[in-house]
């Protein structure tokens, strides 16, 4: 349900003319939210931006998301980022 709420906030912000991108770990919901741009990370809920106290990983993910803010040119695109969850 967090993803439904992200989608509605994203739409409200984009309608003000502000460029937005969201991170999703539930692409099945985001695909129905009608948002401009999203990045899918195959991580568990609670960790969309990575693991705790792993600043290098978190920075890589945030940088990749910002790169997609520039790169995505087709409205409604969800790009899967190449990060994999390794923690057992």
């Amino acid at each position, binding site marked *: 349900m967090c993803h439904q709420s992200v989608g509605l906030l994203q739409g409200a*912000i984009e309608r003000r003319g502000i460029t937005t991108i969201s991170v999703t770990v539930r692409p099945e919901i985001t695909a129905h939210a009608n948002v401009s741009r999203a990045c899918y990370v195959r991580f568990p809920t609670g960790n*969309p931006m990575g693991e705790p106290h792993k600043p290098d990983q978190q920075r890589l993910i945030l940088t990749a998301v910002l790169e997609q803010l520039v790169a995505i040119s087709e409205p409604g695109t969800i790009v899967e980022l190449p990060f994999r969850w390794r923690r057992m």
Partner: protein
Amino acid sequence: MPTPDLEERFRRWLKLIAEMHEGANFTANESITWAPLRKPLAECSIALVSTAGVHLKSQPAHDVLNPQGDASFREIPCDTQASDLAVDHLHYDTSDANADPNCVFPIDRLRELVDTGIVRSIAPMHFGFMGFIPDGRLLRDTTAPIVADRLLAEGTDAVVLTPG
């Protein structure tokens, strides 16, 4: 995307929330709005908006027990350290997010990207929601437009949104 597998997962999720939460009403934007980025990232002021239940430790937590959810928001100023934040949400495991709120709300990381010049600045104000709002119309019609107006008034060029 969407693929047949995603469609099936979405239908299962819709059924689940309808069974678990009285008044659940999946709400999406009527159509996709597209606001192109008008300048390079290195000239942009960036804000974070999260539905992970993030708030300053000094602020009241969201009402996680209300079956109708809680569409209120918490203002998180740009000089906030992740260690100033707490995370409350009953619908996902918040232990990692409370150990390091950057897992859901990467405010320390965003500040570092300003230092390295990847983005120009961190917006003056960021916003924390708790995304459990079963009837999305409550969020759409009340607080979402208020936060969108605030971001615009503060000169924010782009927003990164994160779930729990």
